[in-house]
């Protein structure tokens, strides 16, 4: 057997032995996702066991270096692990902004101290991060952000407001864009990290059309941020921000793949759809399966150094539009059952609430229109 074949056999055996049966069930709602963090009281025993076992092997972040809590796997080994997890329909042990966004940015821009401090805690799910990017006056025009960080010698004094901060009320730490120079736009932005328990930080959940509040307003009132928590150089935060956005877009594009384990849309179609809806679902499935191939290709291209730097924008655009279509079709297939908002039978309206939640997919992390602008300019090189 080749090394990779051995790795596959070992991985298969380990997953079979260690992935709890509950963690092979389809993800039904947001609550099924494991985010980690200081407060793990929400986790079921199976979720906790799965996260801890995978975390101990570094397989929550299989391709991060071992010294920072990762699995140190090669691209080929990571691919095998993904395939083997898909084979048994294993859920991700841990989904977090630390894994999908901050981690890659720290690996590229962080100091050795910052990496050793933060990355292992992300890998083991001990600290949950949130993202302080958008502000009331800075949405698509993110670089117009105004939250200020005043130089006070050994610390910054941060004042301002963020908005659409996902799960800020449940997060332990924040990675945050702040303005350290008001005279220039992009070149006056810095990237800082701080504890959400710091004095002067407050959050207020925003009630959304889904009836849930995954997003918050986040306020900073004279928050002291030690200077060693600056990532990359002062006023060079925009480089970090853009790099991280690429990873955020990759993560959001994963929405296009649908939930792990089973295909609720196909299940709904089996229960009976008229011929026109059946055709729409079938054509949707073609696009979804093609996008699935694209997602694999995108990862391979990234690891092989062949991906265009703006390709995450294409992935984000396609994946989120696809996910919105998926949920529209689920609603159509579900008929009046899919409209129940509170019943136990509907799992408290998880279907319609998820449908409404997807409408944010093409807004958060840069709107579809922003992604199309980026593809036009950077990939197709169309004129301004």
């Amino acid at each position: 057997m080749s090394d990779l074949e051995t790795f596959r056999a070992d991985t298969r055996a380990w997953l079979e032995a260690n992935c709890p049966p509950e963690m092979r069930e389809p993800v039904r709602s947001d609550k099924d996702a494991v985010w980690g963090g200081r407060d793990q009281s929400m986790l079921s025993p199976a979720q906790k066991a799965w996260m801890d076992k995978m975390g101990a092997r570094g397989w929550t972040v299989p391709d991060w270096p071992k010294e920072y809590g990762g699995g140190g796997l090669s691209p080929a080994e990571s691919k095998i692990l993904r395939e083997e997890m898909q084979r048994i329909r294993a859920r991700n042990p841990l989904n977090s902004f630390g894994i999908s966004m901050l981690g890659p940015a720290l690996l590229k821009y962080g100091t050795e101290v910052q990496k050793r401090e933060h990355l292992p805690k992300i890998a083991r799910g001990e600290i949950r991060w949130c993202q302080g990017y958008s502000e009331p006056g800075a949405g698509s025009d993110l670089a117009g952000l105004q939250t200020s960080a005043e130089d006070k010698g050994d610390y910054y004094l941060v004042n301002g407001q963020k908005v659409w901060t996902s799960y800020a009320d449940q997060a332990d730490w924040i990675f945050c864009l702040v303005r350290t120079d008001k005279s220039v736009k992009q070149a006056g932005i810095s990237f800082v990290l701080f504890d959400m328990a710091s004095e002067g930080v407050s959050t207020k959940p925003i009630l959304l059309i889904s009836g849930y509040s995954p997003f918050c307003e986040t306020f900073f009132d004279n928050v002291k941020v030690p200077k060693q928590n600056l990532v990359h150089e002062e006023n060079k935060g925009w480089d970090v921000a853009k790099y991280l956005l690429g990873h955020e877009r990759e993560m959001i594009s994963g929405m296009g793949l649908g939930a792990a384990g089973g295909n609720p849309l196909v299940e709904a179609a089996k229960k009976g759809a008229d011929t026109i809806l059946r055709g729409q679902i079938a054509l949707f499935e073609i696009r979804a399966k093609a996008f699935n191939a694209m997602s694999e290709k995108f990862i391979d291209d990234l690891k092989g150094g062949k991906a265009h730097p703006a390709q995450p924008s294409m992935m984000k655009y396609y994946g989120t539009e696809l996910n919105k279509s998926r949920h529209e079709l689920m609603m159509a297939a579900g008929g009046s059952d899919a409209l129940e908002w509170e019943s136990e039978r509907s799992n408290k309206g998880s279907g319609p609430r998820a449908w409404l939640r997807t409408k944010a997919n093409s807004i958060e992390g840069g709107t579809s229109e922003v992604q199309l602008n980026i593809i036009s300019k950077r990939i197709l090189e169309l004129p301004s």
Partner: protein
Amino acid sequence: MPLYLNDEQAMLRDTAKDFIAEHAPVKHMRALRDANDQTGFSRDLWKSFAEMGFTGILIGEDNGGLGLGHVEAGVVLEEIGRNLSPSPFLATAVAAVEALKGTAQAGKYFPGILSGDTVAALAIDEQAKFRDSVALKAERSGNGFKLTGKKQFVAHGHVADLIIVAARTAGSADDEDGVTLFAVDKGAAGLTAEAERMADSSLTTRLDFDGVEVTADAVIGEVDAGRDPLDRLLRAGRTGAASELLGVGGGTMDMTVEYLKQRKQFGVLIGSFQALQHRAAHLYSEMEVARAATLRAQQMLDSGSDRADEAVSVAKAQAGLATMLAVQEGVQMFGGIGMTDEFDIGFYMKRQRVLAEMFGDANFHADKLARNAGY
């Protein structure tokens, strides 16, 4: 196996790109059309494809071929698509070769395909829309069979040296089993071929089998077990057509994006208009996704995956849909000149339409997937 071309495959792509752009660019197709060519392709070009080794890509080394796979065949087909090169490559060197592979006929036909002397045609379709049904009858007659029925949309059927015919030896038209594949040689008695010029200037044939006698040797594989070689043929044909579509769509997109950077109206480049930028960017996304789906299908065929069939349908459908968008956006964005015969883009639109129908269109494949998934 990562989903991108390895170094050898990328080298083959560069070779095919240069060779086909030089010897069979769009103006080659235009010249054949303008001369009212009655063959449908250039035999000299087919010979030179053989000299380049292209016709032996899918033929095993034990048969004198290169022993490569569908990824490599796809690389050549994409350049054929990009240049709209009329060629029997897809029918002969891809679909027919896959059907014959491992059968007693391989030894008979592979040498001619390798040397560029043999052209094959696929007599599969019996109706205007592709269906997985076979009604053309093959009845036992002496030591052989007698074929009776009609086929249509048979590329190169009027000039082919070898016609692969799907025939019914048992059961009824829509049955999965009871199909036998035959290799019928040129000039068989009772076979009439009526060539039809298609919208894209290619020639396809309506074939009428009026009691065509063939010997038992003409059976490809086993009697009543033609579904295996037929499925191989269809899988290869579909992925191949998907690759050719990628070339048609990619060529269209490149020409269109280039035009957006040159054409001025209202004193500015039209490519600076966001209305066009967003449509171009959307098209780019659809083409990328189609490319990934096609490469995955080819890799799965090459590795013998049991999930290849689904991947092939996804590739054929997505490549058809993405390329349809490409040619529609192309003609629209070129404006009036896109409507002229003098300009090439209309040829791309016509070719897309033909390839989209070949071996089942997007709706056919979506339906097939839905049935297999149980709805």
